[in-house]
C-alpha cells in the first residue's frame, strides 16, 4: 500500500537522520566535553634542559709585587690566560670550569699597601684601594723576604677577596715567565678551590640531580648538615628556663640580634630572606636525665643521649603558621638549680668548650650555666643577666654551619683570617653563592623535567594556563641563569636561579594538578555502557535493517534486469 511505503520511507529517513546526528554532532560533542584542558608547554625546551651543561667562570687577577719577577719576565706581563676543566658527572650532567687569569704587576699604591706590618692591615689598605666584584679574586704574589707572612705560612687568605701568596727566592734566578707560572700553578689552584668553587662543593650542590655515591662520607655529612636552598628562612631564638622559681633570667635578645646576627643576615640578603623571632619557654625540661659526675662535681650529658633531646622539646616550640619556609631553631637552656652546672661531654668524655651542639637541618642548643653567678645564701628567685656576646658567638657559628658556609680545614701552609665583625668573609659569601646558584639550577631543572614527564604520563591531569605560564617563566629564568653563570656574573646568576626555583616550585605544587581522574578500565565501561548501549542498539539495528533492505532491492533489480 502507498501509506505503508511512505511510512517505511519516513521510518528509514528518521533512522538515518538520527544516526547522522549521533555521529556528526554527538560524537564530537562527547569528545570535546570529556577531554581535559591542557595548555601548551614548551616541551622541547624542557627536554634540552634535561641535559644540563653548566659552565662556571671565575675571574682571577694575579698581581706580582716588586721582587717577585725579574725585568725580563716583567716584559711579558700583563698577560691573560684562560683554563678550562671539564668534568662529566653523569650521562645527563656535565660541568665546565673556566678560570680567566690576568697576570700583572703591582701599582705603586698597591706596593705601599703591601708594606704594612701585618697581613691583616695590608688586606685592609688594599681593600680601600679597590673593591673586587662578586665572584672574582685577587692574589698578590709577595717575595720570600716579605715580613707579612710568618715563617711556615705560605698563603694568607684575607677577609675580603684577596689572598697573599709567597713565592720562593730561587725562582728569581734565570727563569722564564712560563716556569714561574708553572711553579705558582699548584698553590694558585689550591687558593682558587678554597676561595671560589671546588669540584666537591659543586657536586654536593648537584645532589638533587645526581644521587651521591655513598663513598664520600665527608662530603655527604656537609651536604646533609646545611639546609636546602630556599628563598627564605625563619630563625627562632628560644630561651628555655625550666626553673623560674630559682632563676629569673633576662636576655637582651633584640639588642643582641641587632648587633651580632643582623649584619650577617644583611650580608646574606642576595642569598635568602630571613625573618627572626624569639620566645621564652618556662618549665621546659630537656627530655634526658643528666648523670652526676662526682670527680668534677657537675652534671654531664653524653653525646649519645643528646640525640633524644630534640624531638620532645620541638613539640613545645611554636612556629610561624603563615609561612612554609624552613625554620632554624636556636635554644638557650638554663639548667635548673638542682642540676647545675651541666656540661656536655663528647665521645672521649672531654668537656666541650662551647657547651653546645647542633642538629643538621634543624638548629642548635646551648647550655648556659648560671650557678657561678650567685652564692648559696641568696633569696630565690635570683636575677640573672645573660652574656649575650658569648651566647651569640656560639649561635652565629652554628648558623654559619647550618646555612652551608663550609668550614673545611685549609691545606697545610695556609692561614685563613679570622671572621670579620659580620661573621662572614666576602669569599665565603661568593662560595655560598656559587653553590646556591648551582643547587637552584639543578633543583629547578629536575622539578621542571619531572613535571613535564608526569604530565605526559598521566593524560588525565588538567593543565591550566597559569601552570603553563609558570613553566615558561621557569624555563626562561633557567636559561638566563645558565647564561649568566657562563659569563661569570654571579649576582645575576643567583637572582635568576632563585626566580627559576620559585616559578618551578609554584608550577609543580599547584593544587590543581592533583591526579584525581584515575579510572580503571572496567569502571569506564561500567559508566558508558548504560548510557550509550540503549541508545545505540536501536540505531544500529535500524541501520542494519535499512542496509539489508537496500541490498535486497538491489538484488531484485538485478534479477529484474536479467
Amino acid at each position, binding site marked *: 500500500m502507498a501509506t505503508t511505503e511512505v511510512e517505511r520511507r519516513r521510518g528509514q529517513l528518521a533512522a538515518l537522520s538520527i544516526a547522522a546526528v549521533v555521529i556528526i554532532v554527538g560524537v564530537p560533542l562527547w569528545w570535546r566535553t570529556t577531554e581535559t584542558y591542557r595548555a601548551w608547554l614548551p616541551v622541547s625546551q624542557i627536554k634540552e634542559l634535561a641535559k644540563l651543561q653548566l659552565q662556571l667562570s671565575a675571574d682571577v687577577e694575579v698581581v706580582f709585587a716588586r721582587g717577585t719577577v725579574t725585568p725580563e719576565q716583567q716584559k711579558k706581563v700583563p698577560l691573560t690566560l684562560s683554563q678550562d676543566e671539564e668534568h662529566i658527572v653523569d650521562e645527563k650532567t656535565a660541568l665546565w670550569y673556566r678560570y680567566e687569569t690576568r697576570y700583572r704587576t703591582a701599582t705603586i699604591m698597591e706596593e705601599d699597601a703591601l708594606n704594612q706590618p701585618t697581613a691583616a692591615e695590608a688586606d685592609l689598605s688594599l681593600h680601600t684601594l679597590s673593591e673586587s666584584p662578586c665572584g672574582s679574586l685577587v692574589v698578590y704574589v709577595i717575595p720570600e723576604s716579605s715580613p707579612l707572612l710568618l715563617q711556615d705560612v705560605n698563603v694568607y687568605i684575607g677577609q675580603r677577596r684577596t689572598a697573599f701568596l709567597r713565592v720562593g727566592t730561587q725562582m728569581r734566578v734565570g727563569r722564564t715567565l712560563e716556569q714561574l707560572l708553572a711553579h705558582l700553578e699548584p698553590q694558585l689552584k689550591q687558593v682558587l678551590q678554597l676561595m671560589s668553587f671546588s669540584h666537591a662543593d659543586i657536586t654536593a650542590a648537584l*645532589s*638533587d640531580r645526581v644521587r651521591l655515591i655513598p663513598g664520600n662520607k665527608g662530603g655527604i655529612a656537609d651536604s*646533609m*648538615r646545611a639546609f636546602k636552598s630556599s628563598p627564605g628562612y625563619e630563625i627562632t631564638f628560644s630561651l628555655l628556663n625550666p626553673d623560674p622559681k630559682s632563676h629569673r633570667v633576662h636576655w*637582651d635578645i633584640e*639588642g643582641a640580634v*641587632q*648587633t*651580632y646576627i643582623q649584619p650577617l643576615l644583611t650580608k646574606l640578603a642576595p642569598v635568602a630572606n630571613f625573618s627572626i623571632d624569639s620566645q621564652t619557654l618556662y618549665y621546659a625540661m630537656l627530655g634526658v636525665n643528666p648523670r652526676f659526675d662526682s670527680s668534677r662535681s657537675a652534671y654531664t650529658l653524653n*653525646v*649519645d643521649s*643528646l*640525640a*633524644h633531646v630534640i*624531638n*620532645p622539646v620541638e*613539640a613545645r616550640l611554636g*612556629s*610561624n*603558621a*603563615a*609561612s*612554609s619556609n624552613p625554620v632554624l631553631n636556636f635554644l638557650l637552656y638554663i639548667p635548673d638549680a638542682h642540676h647545675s652546672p651541666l656540661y*656536655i661531654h*663528647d665521645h672521649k668524655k672531654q668537656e*666541650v*668548650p*662551647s657547651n*653546645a*651542639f*647542633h*642538629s643538621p*637541618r634543624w638548629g*642548635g642548643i*646551648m647550655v648556659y650555666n648560671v650557678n657561678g653567678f650567685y652564692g648559696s645564701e641568696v633569696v630565690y628567685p635570683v636575677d640573672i643577666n645573660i652574656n*649575650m*656576646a658569648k651566647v*651569640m*658567638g*656560639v649561635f652565629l*657559628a*652554628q648558623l654559619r*654551619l647550618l646555612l652551608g658556609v663550609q*668550614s673545611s680545614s685549609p691545606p697545610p701552609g695556609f692561614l685563613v683570617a679570622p*671572621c670579620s665583625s659580620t*661573621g662572614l668573609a666576602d669569599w665565603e659569601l661568593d662560595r655560598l653563592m656559587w653553590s646556591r646558584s648551582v643547587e637552584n639550577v639543578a633543583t629547578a631543572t*629536575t622539578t621542571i623535567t*619531572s613535571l613535564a*614527564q*608526569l604530565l605526559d604520563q*598521566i593524560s588525565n591531569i588538567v593543565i591550566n594556563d597559569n601552570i603553563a605560564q609558570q613553566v615558561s617563566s621557569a624555563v626562561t629564568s633557567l636559561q638566563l641563569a645558565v647564561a649568566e653563570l657562563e659569563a661569570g656574573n654571579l649576582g645575576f646568576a643567583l637572582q635568576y636561579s632563585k626566580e627559576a626555583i620559585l616559578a618551578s616550585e609554584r608550577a*609543580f*605544587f599547584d*593544587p590543581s*594538578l*592533583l*591526579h*584525581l581522574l*584515575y579510572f*580503571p578500565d572496567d569502571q569506564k565501561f561500567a559508566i558508558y555502557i548504560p548510557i550509550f548501549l540503549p541508545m545505540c542498539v536501536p540505531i544500529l539495528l535500524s541501520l542494519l535493517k535499512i542496509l539489508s533492505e537496500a541490498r535486497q532491492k538491489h538484488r531484485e533489480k538485478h534479477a529484474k534486469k536479467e
Partner: protein
Amino acid sequence: CSVLLIKMKQRIRRKDVTVENFLRVLTGRLPPSTPRSKRLLSDDRSNILIYLTGHGGNGFLKFQDSEEISNVELADAFEQMWQKRRYNELLFIIDTCQGASMYERFYSPNLMALASSQVGEDSLSHQPDLAIGVHLMDRYTFYLLEFLEDIHPASKTNMNDLFKVCPKSQCVSTPGHRTNLFLRDPGSVLITDFFGSVRKVEITMETINFTDHVKQLQKETYSYVDQLPVSEIIHQKPKQKDWHPPDGFILGLWTLILLVFFKTYGIKHLKHIF
C-alpha cells in the same frame, strides 16, 4: 617508656580525612593558605612512616564509607614524592583485608611495605569488649603494638624482627612484606630509624669571639589601645536587625498555596479573604 606515647596532636579532623586530602598532603599540592601543621614538610633526608587501617579489598582501601583509594593512586603518589625528593626512606604498614594488594603496584625506590594479610585473605580483629559490644583492635595492630612497646630509643632491633610479628598462628591471616624496592638490606635497617625520635647531632666545635658591645636600643614602651569601659560593653543594646522582605522561596510557596486554593474552590471565595 613506650615509644609510641609521643604526643600526637590531632591536627587533621575526621571530616578532613578524604582521599583527596591524603593525596594532597603526600604530594604537597596544598593551597597556599594551608598552615604548617597540616603540611608534610619533609625533604630528601626524611624517613616517613605511613600506617593505614580500616576496611579494604583487592587493590583498594575504604575512606569514610563513601570513597576509596586504589593501589595505583597510592603508587603514583609515592612516585611523585620520589621525583620531588620528599622522602629518603618510606615504611608503609597496612592492616586491612587483602592488604598485600595495596603494595603490589609500588615502583618507586626506597619503599618498604608490610601488610597484615595476603590477597584473598581477611584480616581479623582481636578481642571484643563484651560491655560495649564491639571489637577494639585488629589482631595485626595489637601484636605490632605489643612488639613496639618493648623497643626503647636506643634499641638495635632491625626490620627482620618486625617482619616476624604476628605469625599465622596468632593472626590467622598471613602477614606479608615487600622489600625489593628498598636499597638497604632490611637486616641493617633499625626500627628506631622510623619509630624512635632519634636525631643526628654534632658537637659545636667552633665559636666566634665577640667583645661585648651591645648597642643600647631605644626601648619602646608598649601599651594597650584605649578600650571601651566594661560597663558600656555589657549593657550595649543588641543591634536592630534590618528588616528584609520575605525570601523568594516563602513568597513562591504562599503564591502556590493561594493559587491551588482558588483553583479548587473558585474565585468567588476571594471576598472572604479581602
